[in-house]
């Protein structure tokens, strides 16, 4: 029953420990073979043996390079490497069998638990062996439970193929036994679901409502109650204030218009020109001396009647609606524009015949 299931961590540890105690003797002979791989975590003696075994290897190297009282870093590394040379063979072999018990086996995991033990057994060491010991750990620092378990199980695997002996399951304590499912009544669950359901629904309704309100208010924001613009309709004075041939500039600053009394197509008329260049929207200037409107941005020029003749402006200036109000004054309506190229200057609303 138990061995069919996956083993828990505790079970794995227990199994590993049992296996260790059985195969301890064998481990010695194995470690003697490869001096650098003391793979016996529970037997410090083996590790202690392994460590001295390495020590003669370290001084052996400087002999090759005479004259050096202290070995250089390169030498130390070379020593360490020499010491380590045998290790991979030993480590690689057990790696494969170790796969079975460990959920995530690592080839070098076998050494992991060995290193601390080695350090305990022989605290005074030379650089070479410390480096060697350090290099054996593929991941220094704290290890997780799973890694520890894997290390210990694979440590046994170094010795021989592991026989996974499933320990008899201890009888479950009373508190661990499955309790009979409490007789849950259907009604409270339904009630709770109802309660949460309705609260949730209310929340979403509220959210939706608030969002809708925000949207509406945003739309409303686009249409403010107060419009800080001059009125689109305004009076500019009586017609006799605009003598023939004059371009009245005094409304430009406030309203953006010129009131012009000139001929268009041979017909004398008063009209209101919009002071916005038809090229890119700069404000042209009326040049009295040259009798033309001239844009300072790209040099477009317009005749007195607003027809474009120089520069890049593609079409004439636009006219605003104009009429004689009931009191006899001229009233300009900026809400309507008249474009010459669309033939709109023929519209009687665009001028006052003089």
């Amino acid at each position, binding site marked *: 029953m138990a061995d069919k299931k996956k083993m828990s961590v505790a079970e794995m540890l227990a199994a590993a420990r049992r296996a260790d105690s059985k195969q301890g003797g064998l481990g010695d002979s194995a470690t003697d073979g490869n001096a650098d791989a003391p793979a016996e975590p529970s037997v410090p003696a083996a590790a202690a043996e392994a460590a001295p075994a390495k020590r003669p290897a370290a001084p052996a190297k400087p002999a090759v390079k005479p004259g050096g009282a202290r070995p250089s870093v390169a030498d130390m590394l070379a020593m360490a490497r020499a010491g380590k040379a045998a290790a991979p063979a030993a480590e690689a072999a057990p790696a494969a069998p170790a796969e079975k018990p460990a959920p995530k086996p690592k080839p070098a995991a076998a050494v992991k638990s060995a290193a601390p033990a080695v350090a305990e057994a022989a605290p005074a060491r030379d650089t070479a062996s410390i480096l060697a010991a350090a290099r054996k750990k593929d991941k220094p620092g704290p290890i997780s439970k799973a890694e520890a378990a894997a290390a210990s199980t694979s440590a046994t695997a170094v010795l021989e193929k592991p026989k996974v002996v499933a320990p008899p399951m201890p009888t479950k304590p009373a508190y661990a036994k499955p309790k009979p499912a409490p007789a849950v009544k259907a009604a409270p669950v339904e009630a709770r679901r109802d309660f949460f359901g309705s609260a949730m629904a209310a929340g979403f309704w509220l959210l939706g409502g608030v969002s809708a309100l925000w949207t509406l208010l945003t739309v409303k924001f686009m249409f403010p109650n107060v419009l800080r613009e001059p009125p689109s309709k305004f009076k500019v004075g009586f017609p006799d204030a605009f003598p023939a041939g004059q371009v009245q500039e005094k409304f430009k600053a406030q309203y953006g218009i010129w009131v012009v009394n000139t001929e268009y197509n041979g017909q004398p008329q008063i009209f209101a020109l919009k002071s916005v260049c038809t090229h890119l929207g700069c404000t042209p*200037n009326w040049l009295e001396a040259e009798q033309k409107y001239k844009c*300072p941005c790209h040099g477009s020029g317009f005749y007195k009647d607003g027809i474009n003749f120089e520069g*890049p402006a593609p079409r004439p200036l636009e006219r605003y609606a104009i009429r004689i109000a009931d009191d006899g004054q001229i009233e300009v309506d900026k809400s309507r524009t008249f474009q010459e190229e669309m033939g709109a200057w023929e519209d009687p609303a665009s001028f006052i015949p003089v």
Partner: protein
Amino acid sequence: MTHGLTDAQFLNKVASFLGPYYIVLAVMNGLAALYLWRTGLGRTWLRLPLVGIPVTSAFLCLALGVFYAMLAPAAASGNGAWMPSMPEAWREAINRGTGPVIYSVGTVALLAVLFAFRRFFVQPAVAWIIWNAMLLFLGLSMTDRDFYEIVAKPDNVPIVMLVLLLAFFTWVATYRAVINDERAARGEPPLESLDNDKVLVWPDLVYIELICMIGLTAFLIFWAIALPAPLEEPASSVKTPNPSKAPWYFLGLQEMLVYFDPWMAGVVLPSLIVVGLMAIPYIDFNKAGNGYYTINQRKFAYLVFQFGFLEMWITLIVLGTLLRGPNWNFFGPYEYWDAHKVEALNNVNLSQYFWQGLLGRSLPTAPSGSSFGTQLSYILLREAPGILLTLGYFIALPPIMAITVFRRYFQRMGLIRFMLMANLLLFMASLPIKMVLRWVFNLKYIIAIPEYFLNF
């Protein structure tokens, strides 16, 4: 800026700048002489006949430095008679010579000459002389009030720096390219491959960057204090300053807007510039020139880019700064900005040229009150010559290019890439073509459909 100053006050103001300016030039030449003398670079040009002193490059630099050192006190005197300045006749000649046609054709010709004889112009001695001539030209022109108004305006100082910096960096790149091309002709590797020492990011590069950062910050602080940004009156939608100039880096765009419809020059062409620059790696099939300067190995790419950058962007910035005045009229660099200068720019559309000029009849106009379809067909008939011309330019020209001048490119690039390149080239060429047509024939638009805001 100099409004309300008498001539004497103005000259005093300029003198306070020009004195140190000439001293800087003198020191610059003195340092160059020192460098040439210590390194033994340069050469002996001739031997003075009597005393037998060799005239070396270092000696000439020193002489130039002494010349500037002598100019400095005269310039700092603030006395109009003493201050070195451009002769009146020269100024007049330059004013007359900077009309749009002479300016644009002249800059193209100048770049062509610089390119054709680049082997001569990149020689350090020649380049040094040109460099000194540019700086001397600036110094001599500063005493002119109208020139000073333009150049010393805080907005325009970056443009003066741009011209000088651009000249320097273009020289560096061309100099190295010429050396590399000569090495390549001899079968040697380019200069850059000799100098391939690995440099560590930390500390070498990071230190350089840190020093540059500090230096640049100090320079910006100095600039901000020395040349405060101009404060102008509050903006008003019904008042546009005259002239109204774009930020200096957009002056090329503003110049383009003079010749094209806003959506063309403001939207289509700028987008095409960006898209075209991004498309270069995909269009370019020439693998040479990677990691080193060269001209001969990628002549076409070099010429197209330098024309687009130097001619279509930089010279237009200079034109917009120096030569455009009130009402966006052309003014010489030493000419008074007269807002009432009259220039006849009576522009005519191609359709008017065709129907009224060539055929001697009125423009085809739809009878009033006709339906939309009729109106549209009348408009299309009216603009037929321009539409045909434009379609021919963009559709017929690429195949013709493919079988004539660009035959090899077409074979290497394939249809799609070639068409892309050809059209980008044609769009780039459309700007100078349009400019010349405007200046020479007063042509406004080739296609003019103001009814639907479609002009080309």
